């Protein structure tokens, strides 16, 4: 695990340093900016979906769905981050504890 921790940390630093160092005009075009602004949306949405429904290479419905849905409700109610994740965890763990979901 250490190689990926250190290599990707270095990579993230170099990405930051590139922005501070390259001439403005090199990266400052609208398409590059759009892609950079949209990448987090794409990646985070894909991560939400996959981590909610995937189990290895299969798609399953289990307690995670209810947990994430409860987290979404907490977000709509403007709950802070820790409340959102705790609600999600408690709902999923509770359903499993009572045998209501896998």
């Amino acid at each position, binding site marked *: 695990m250490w190689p990926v921790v250190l290599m*990707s940390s270095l990579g993230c630093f170099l990405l930051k340093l590139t922005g*501070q160092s390259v001439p403005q005009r090199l990266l400052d075009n609208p398409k590059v900016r759009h892609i950079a602004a949209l990448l987090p949306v794409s990646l*985070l949405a894909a991560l939400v979906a996959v981590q909610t429904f995937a189990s290895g290479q299969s798609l399953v419905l289990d307690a995670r769905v209810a947990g994430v849905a409860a987290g979404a409700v907490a977000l709509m109610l403007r709950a802070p981050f820790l409340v*959102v994740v705790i609600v999600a965890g408690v709902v999923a763990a509770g359903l499993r504890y009572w045998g209501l979901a896998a």
Partner: protein
Amino acid sequence: MSAAATWTEERRSVIRDATGVGIAVGAYGIGFGALSVASGLSFAQTMALSLLMFTGASQFALVGVIAAGGGSIAAGLTALLLGVRNTLYGLRIAPVLQVTGFKRAIAAQLTIDETTAMSLARDEDAFEGRSARLAFWATGLSVYVFWNLATLIGALGAGALGDPRAFGLDAVIPAAFLALLWPRLKGRDPWAIAIISAVVALALTPFLRPGLPVLAAALVAVIAGLRAGPALVPISSAPRDAETGAREEDGAAPGGGPA
């Protein structure tokens, strides 16, 4: 009122805001530290990520992909792709800071959602640029300290909690990603891109190794960005969102969080 008194007030206000953002980011840091250790990373690896990677969304992604069995290359690539936005923040913030050499390297490490947002929120010309520069450095210091302290607390706490599945860790991870995504979903276009990306990732899940469907979904952003008109998603929108309560990912993680 003299100019000096005004600067004193401005400085106090900048430092107060910076401290507030640092404390807010701490909540994500506790979440990151706990998730990382519960996902199987060691305490030292968890701290290394917060100290060295210091961009919350990338850190969450790396840990999340590993927890889902995605393998280290997919985990690293996902973290890097999420870090790309910091390059754009650097472009925007470099003319404000005007630093070189070692100071530039420090500035680069601190270039995340929160520092960019707080600095750009100040008038660039006020006090000959001192206000915007102080906002960057004060927020950077505050977020760096609180993010790492919070990671430490979360990592120690998770070690004491025991079996991750018993407290619903596998639901906590996607909920954390949803919380990082939430403030970016302003307007119709981000929603559309989020939904298409989610569908693409799920559709590919049966056919690709874990971790790869998420990377494939990044192509949705690339295609949408190439097709977009000039008005879509100004670069400043993400930092502004972060300022109103999201973390960063990266910047301050969380995300960016430090993100």
